[in-house]
């Protein structure tokens, strides 16, 4: 269970959110500039939080009142940003084992790579990979570190249509099995439906609603949500 209460002020923009996410995927949707990526970065510890608390499985990662601020490298929160942030000078294998050095890490990384079909690419560098392959490497790197929570920032946005279908299927297959809180930022209702988990709607830096998928579809809580839902109906 990931619970957070955050107030982040950045360049005149105020993010003020409270949300909790259980094990499995939770979709984070909202218009551009609503603060979705900032929420992920705050959980990661990459943006300064003015006031707030982040608790992951009972462990306090941040509590501004108690002056608790666990450094990013000890949070065990994995993050896959939009552009993946793969290490360009390292091979696929080196990228995936980055978070788990040593022989034991190599073994667990190997298992994750097999699972995602990355074994044949192990000695390539990110520059020589397709977009879908890079996304898989980023996911494998995140999973190999055995995180307690996973943050995916628009995991499918940079992919072409075919790759997006395949990668979506992969996420749908992989994420629920992890059984860790997984926040997935997306712009596509199809992703939200495929993930099947709760939907958190963020607008102008605040949580507008946090509901089950069915409720979100049945009665979209805002104009943005309505357009998101209907676009998916028209689009498929």
């Amino acid at each position: 269970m990931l619970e957070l209460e955050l107030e982040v002020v950045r360049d005149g923009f105020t993010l003020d959110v409270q949300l909790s996410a259980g094990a499995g995927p939770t979709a984070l949707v909202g218009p551009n500039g609503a603060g979705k990526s900032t929420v992920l970065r705050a959980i990661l510890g990459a943006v300064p939080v003015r006031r707030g608390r982040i608790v992951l499985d009972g462990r306090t990662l941040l509590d501004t009142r108690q002056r608790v601020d666990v450094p990013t490298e000890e949070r065990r929160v994995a993050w896959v940003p939009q552009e993946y942030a793969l290490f360009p000078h390292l091979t696929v294998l080196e990228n995936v084992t980055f978070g788990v050095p040593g022989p034991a890490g190599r073994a667990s990384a190997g298992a994750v790579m097999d699972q995602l079909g990355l074994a044949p690419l192990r000695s390539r560098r990110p520059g020589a990979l397709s977009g879908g392959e890079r996304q898989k490497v980023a996911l494998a790197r995140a999973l190999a570190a055995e995180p307690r929570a996973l943050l995916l920032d628009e995991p499918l946005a940079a992919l072409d249509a075919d790759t997006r279908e395949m990668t979506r299927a992969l996420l749908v297959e992989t994420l629920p099995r992890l059984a860790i809180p997984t926040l997935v930022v997306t712009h596509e209702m199809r992703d939200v439906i495929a993930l099947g988990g709760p939907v958190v709607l963020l607008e102008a830096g605040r949580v507008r609603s946090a509901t089950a998928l069915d409720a979100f579809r049945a009665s979209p809580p805002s104009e943005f949500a309505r357009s998101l839902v209907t676009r998916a109906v028209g689009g498929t």
Partner: protein
Amino acid sequence: MSPRTGAGLLGLLPATAALLMLALLAVPLFALVVSTSPGDLLEGLRHPLALSALRLSLFTTTTSLALTLLLGTPLAWWMARHPGPAERVAATLVQLPIVVPPAVSGLALLLAFGRRGLLGPALEQAGWALPFTTAAVIVAELFVSAPFYIQSAVATFRRLDEDLLWAARSLGAGPARRFFRVVLPLSRPGVVTGAALSWARALGEFGATLMFAGNLQGRTQTLPLAIYSAMETDLRPAKALSILLVTVALAVLVLLGRGTVVEAVRARA
């Protein structure tokens, strides 16, 4: 002269200027090379002045480069990561030695570390009399050359994609692992270029060394100072050492050029 020819000649003006400029750069080096026979070169390099200066220069520039890397890298990293008023002050301090005349640097070093300088008495009490020692040569070289490395390193560190560092942190990598496994390998071209430029500057250092460290054979007489001294007696070692320095400078340029080619190939692979 018809107006037409006049216009034609006028059109040649830029080309003439450009050739003149190139000639001005090339002729002195050409003169240096053609005026030195291979025999002169060998004779000059065998001169006692040459060997001790060569040894001293190698030792002092290697030491000052090591100190530059050791002290300059953390400073460059801090400057790249903390833009603001303090960083701007640091950036100005780093830029000044590049622009300030070496003679001024030498005087400033004397006023700081000289026997009657700001820190001189304290240093002397600690058993460290800096001026006119080999250590002073190293300090002078460090003062004038470190800025070249620091500037290059700052620029390189700034270009680094910050998300890579956050990704590394999210994977549990502490500061040392991030720096040696991510920052340094990705910054290698800029760091190597900066180190090479800085080393070349240290090797050529003359004015500040002369004023702060003096010109004592075997102790503070580096290659440029040996050239200066040799000119008064025998031109052959001066010419030989000059050619040596030009060769080293060319080698640095080739190394840097090759460095970029290697990087280009690697990026494509």
